[in-house]
């Protein structure tokens, strides 16, 4: 069908309609290796839907999503994860009844089949990796605490940590700093800059200050279509973007 590309992620002609309403309409964009790509846009622009489509939560009505030249649209969710795509949800999505350690351990990419999980051993490799990630996400002192009792910001970090332990090549984050304090936001930007080594990150964010801090490339979505694309500098000065999004 379409030709192989050098891009890590190539989204081409992606369309999804819900009862005739096209939430995403003939969308194409590309993510390079080691790139932080930010998607911005007004509410209802279809940002979250794009992430849903890439990770398989929503099925595309048309178009293709190629990850390292592998078509994702036909794959099941857990296969997409195994292919190297990690997804963080908008609201912190962690396991309240388990400890921080157990939350991270479940995401450790081993023993993912039923019997693999039964035979799974908590060995030194797992413990070291969990400790390493916990340090990155500032939660070393909370490992034995039930995740339920973490603050909102800490929960967001924990979920980012759960993705990091999977070591995905493409990390997708849906509003990672929403609801965070200024201090937490700063730490998150620091965290993101630390974790982009050897991986690409696709971020949805509203916080323009934060976007400026981290973005290599910005795509502006509006009504399921691309309004503008390029560096933050370029996008910021695009009159169309100012009119529908930034101007308000």
């Amino acid at each position, binding site marked *: 069908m379409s030709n192989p590309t050098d891009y890590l992620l190539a989204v081409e002609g992606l369309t999804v309609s819900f009862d005739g309403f096209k939430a995403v309409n003939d969308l194409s964009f590309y993510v390079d290796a080691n790139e932080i790509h930010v998607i911005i846009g007004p509410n209802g622009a279809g940002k979250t839907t794009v992430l849903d489509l890439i990770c398989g939560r929503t099925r595309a009505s048309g178009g293709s999503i190629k990850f390292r030249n592998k078509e994702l649209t036909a794959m099941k969710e857990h296969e997409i994860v195994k292919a190297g795509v990690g997804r963080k*949800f908008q609201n912190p999505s962690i*396991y309240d009844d388990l400890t921080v350690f157990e939350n991270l351990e479940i995401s450790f990419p081993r023993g993912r089949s039923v019997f693999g999980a039964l035979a799974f051993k908590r060995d030194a490799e797992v413990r070291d990796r969990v400790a390493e990630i916990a340090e990155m996400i500032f939660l070393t002192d909370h490992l*034995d605490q039930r995740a339920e009792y973490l603050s909102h910001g800490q929960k967001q970090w924990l979920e980012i940590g759960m993705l990091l332990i999977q070591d995905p090549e493409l990390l997708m984050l849906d509003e990672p700093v929403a609801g965070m304090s200024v201090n937490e936001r700063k730490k998150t930007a620091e965290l993101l800059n630390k974790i982009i080594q050897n991986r690409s990150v696709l971020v949805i964010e509203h916080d323009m200050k934060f976007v400026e801090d981290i973005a290599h490339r910005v795509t502006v979505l509006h009504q399921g279509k691309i309004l503008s694309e390029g560096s933050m500098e370029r996008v910021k000065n695009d009159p169309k973007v100012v009119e529908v999004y930034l101007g308000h």
Partner: protein
Amino acid sequence: MKQAIQSGSPFRVTGEMAGVLLLALFIVVVLPLGLDTFRLNMVGKYLTYAFVALGLVLCWGSAGILSLGQGIFFGLGGYCMAMFLKLEASSPEATKIQSTPGIPDFMDWNQLTALPWFWEPFHSLTFSVVAVVAVPALLAFVVGLAMFKRRVGGVYFAIITQAFAAILTILIVGQQGYTGGINGITDLRTLKGWDIRTDEAKLVLYFVNAALLIGCILLCLYVRHSKLGRILVALRDKEDRVRFSGYDVANFKIFVFCFAAALSAVGGAMFTLQVGFMSPSFVGIVPSIEMVIYCAVGGRLSLLGAVYGTLLVNWAKTLLSESFPELWLFAMGALFIGVVMVFPNGLAGLYQQYLAPHVKRALSRGRTIAPAPASATTSAIVPPHTAAD
């Protein structure tokens, strides 16, 4: 200290083992010493329901999958056992007054002249014992595959399991010639020539049942402490997060549903052996819901709680229906409402909340060396309802 906690908190494990030991002591030593054979046989019957309750703790408590059809698997396990025993009781000599000797009596009454094909393999004890576990597990697998792969869950799943329970009852009652109908399979006598109706046999079977129950509890503990056990809790909480962490969620649900079915089936087979018959009245909707109540009263998050809950509810049922037969149903309704509204984590939850702190303090006072404070910190951050076993 931190290392010790992360490797699975040794105190909690030993605490659990102490609980299992205490239960074993209670059902293997205390009850046989304190009860006559008739009452002990009744307790043995109650304990067969405890297998179902154990399965529900994993399926419903851990994974959040409420099945209102566990009677199906209890019944199938029981029927597999009953078919073997019935064939042994239907030797040509014992049934020579029938028009077709050598087939079970109810078949003869229903004008059947040959043993149906699916009865044939039940001449073999080995086959029957395997079938006790395999048939219900296989049915659970098929139902689970059809439901969970399509992402049917919650209330819909519960209703569908009810429908299956109703279907199976109707099938058994309707196919009288093949199944014994509404009366079930009765008049079971011997197991490989060993008369199961004597007091002595009942005593032996009680202990076999108790040993199997303890074995199943240990097996459940193993599953719960494995990563699979934690994944079940995780998917009860945030199914999507588990799915997008690279797990095929449906497979885990199918596993736990089959596991619960197999446990129930062991209980069913032991029921047949101890009570001496099996009938559709243990298969349908009402018994299935009663089994959920046993589990809920004991505490759906606690394996041991579910066993005690089963014993307690059944003991109350016997007591009440002996003196006020018409009151039992109301009492059970009240019990269920009470559990849901007042103590949602059942007896085990109450224990954890009110008694466990005192027990722990008393225990740690008894000890002089270090491990006690470590356990105190873990229990402080684990609220009652997770540490419920």
